[in-house]
């Protein structure tokens, strides 16, 4: 028996029903069963859920976020040299299902939570901006907003929010090929569209439901041509079979599609994850060789051994250096002995 379709059910938290976004989403999925819940956590944070079973039939949970609209960036994510680095999590979870995704360990549920009180996020960002004088804000962390843009235009809203605020830099990170959803907007210099790119073998084997490399590159090319600042992220770099050849090919393919001079910058990071998350994910996803690699633990983070990580990042950095100047290549390493 097949599973129900994705978003066959929409769980609406008490108080969320009056928000226009809730009504818009319910109209968009008019065939869905709408189930009223008192608190989104009753659905999302239940114990004993099977993340991978839920991934086969994801549901939507619409809720109102009551507090903490912005989170300070963790050391596992790059701050690109910005002192005030925050991220907003207006959605929890993502429509894709990558083997290496930390969300599988972070959240008990694979269902998508959308907080429909966008104006409160905007207010929190304005407040933080005023306090810090400048802000680097990741708006598509813990999710992939652009992949969901056709359902709820959050990227569009964040871009319009950033447009008059030159001391705000937002990053919209994505694996989607859905640039068309925002292609009608005039580009701005303080909204970076960041595409995560992986070798074709990785996207085919370990990035379930994501668009193939060629589609992501085509979307990034369109964005560059339209004048958007575009970042490409080779993150996580994985120690797959013949990894040198695969990443060299990836970089060559990338710069065959994208003009190096048109890129905002390029970011490299190797696989790393909270150790507790990996432990949970290994229980849920027993068939992934990637997750059962003998990673090394440093503090609360697991990743490749120092020498392996250095070798991989150096190799990818070297490949990139044939196309980009050093100041456009950002290499992220989790500080040794970190206790994040």
């Amino acid at each position: 028996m097949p599973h129900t379709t994705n978003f066959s059910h929409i769980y609406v938290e008490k108080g969320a029903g009056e928000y226009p976004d809730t009504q818009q989403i319910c109209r968009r999925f008019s065939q869905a069963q709408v189930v009223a819940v008192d608190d989104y956590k009753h659905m999302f944070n239940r114990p004993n859920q099977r993340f991978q079973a839920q991934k086969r039939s994801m549901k939507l949970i619409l809720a109102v976020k009551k507090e903490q609209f912005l989170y300070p960036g963790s050391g596992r994510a790059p701050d690109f040299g910005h002192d005030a680095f925050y991220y907003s999590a207006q959605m929890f979870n993502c429509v894709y299902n990558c083997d290496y995704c930390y969300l599988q360990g972070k959240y008990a549920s694979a269902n998508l939570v959308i907080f429909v009180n966008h104006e409160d996020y905007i207010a929190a960002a304005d407040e933080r901006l005023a306090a810090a004088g400048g802000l680097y804000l990741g708006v598509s962390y813990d999710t992939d907003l652009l992949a969901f843009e056709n359902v709820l235009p959050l990227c569009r809203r964040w871009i319009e929010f950033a447009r008059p605020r030159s001391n705000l830099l937002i990053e919209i990170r994505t694996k989607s090929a859905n640039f068309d959803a925002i292609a009608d907007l005039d580009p701005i210099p303080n909204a970076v569209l960041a595409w995560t790119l992986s070798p074709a073998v990785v996207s085919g084997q370990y990035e379930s439901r994501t668009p193939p490399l060629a589609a992501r590159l085509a979307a990034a090319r369109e964005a560059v041509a339209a004048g958007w600042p575009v970042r490409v992220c080779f993150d996580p770099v994985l120690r797959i079979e013949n990894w040198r050849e695969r990443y060299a090919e990836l970089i060559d393919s990338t710069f065959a599609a994208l003009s190096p001079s048109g890129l905002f910058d390029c970011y490299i990071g190797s696989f790393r994850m909270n150790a507790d998350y990996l432990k949970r994910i290994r229980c849920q996803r027993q068939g992934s060789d990637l997750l059962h690699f003998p990673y090394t633990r440093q503090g609360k983070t697991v990743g490749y051994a120092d020498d392996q990580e250095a070798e991989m990042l150096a190799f990818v950095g070297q490949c990139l250096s044939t196309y980009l100047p050093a100041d456009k290549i950002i290499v992220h390493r989790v500080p040794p002995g970190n206790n994040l």
Partner: protein
Amino acid sequence: MLYLVVALPCEAKPLTRQLGLVRDNDVANPASFAGDDGILVVSGVGKARAAAATAFMLARYGDRGPGVVANVGVCGATGNVHEIGQLLVINRIRDHGSDRLFLPDMLYRHSCPEAALTTCDQPVQSGQSTVGAGSVVDMEGAGFFEAAAMFVPADLIICLKVVSDFLDEDLKAARVTELMAAQAGPAVDILRGAAAAAHAPEPPLTPAEQEALSIAAEALRLSVTQRHMLQQLAVGYKLRTSQNLLPILEPCHTSDTIDKQARLARFDDLRRQLAPA
């Protein structure tokens, strides 16, 4: 495997017949029925009995294989949304006494209407304002769900109800059996379909490999941490290469006759063989 909790014998009868279950005479109470692909326990009326019977069933029979756990029975309906005899898949259960909410994971396709269920401590009469219009009421669902959720993941817990009345009549057992008999086939189809779809993938190591791993760990006198490390390496090796692990593990099975240094050396060698290049 289907694990069913049913309140009354008159509800159980069509289901035991449909599944070919026979009375387990080793169990006096709660009345229990077993078969090749199903277990059914008759809990009695009320959420405490339903919870106790669910816990009993899963503790006693839960090792018979993976499957779904279900509460199947009749319910009363409010309003004019549902029809007598209709089979409903429950997508929300509210315990009227505590106001707690239980939410089954609706992962598996079915062709029945869905409904929200309110579990009450006492029979509800027509006109009482304890439940909202359009929802259905019973006396077991919440107790069943809360107990089942302690044993199995939420997506494996299913609640199916057959509308028996509009809270305005005193039902006879024969009528309940008649209503249940008409929906026993569709109900079992839903549950079997869900059990098949919910089937977890096979673990990466075969039972023989897992056994060989345990023997090797014992022979090498590994610590808990070392055993965990060996398990991860073995799973990773198997997933990467699909090679049989037995030729690598079996030479370690006789290490108990050698000294500690030699055992450690053999463990290091094993780690090297299983680690990626």
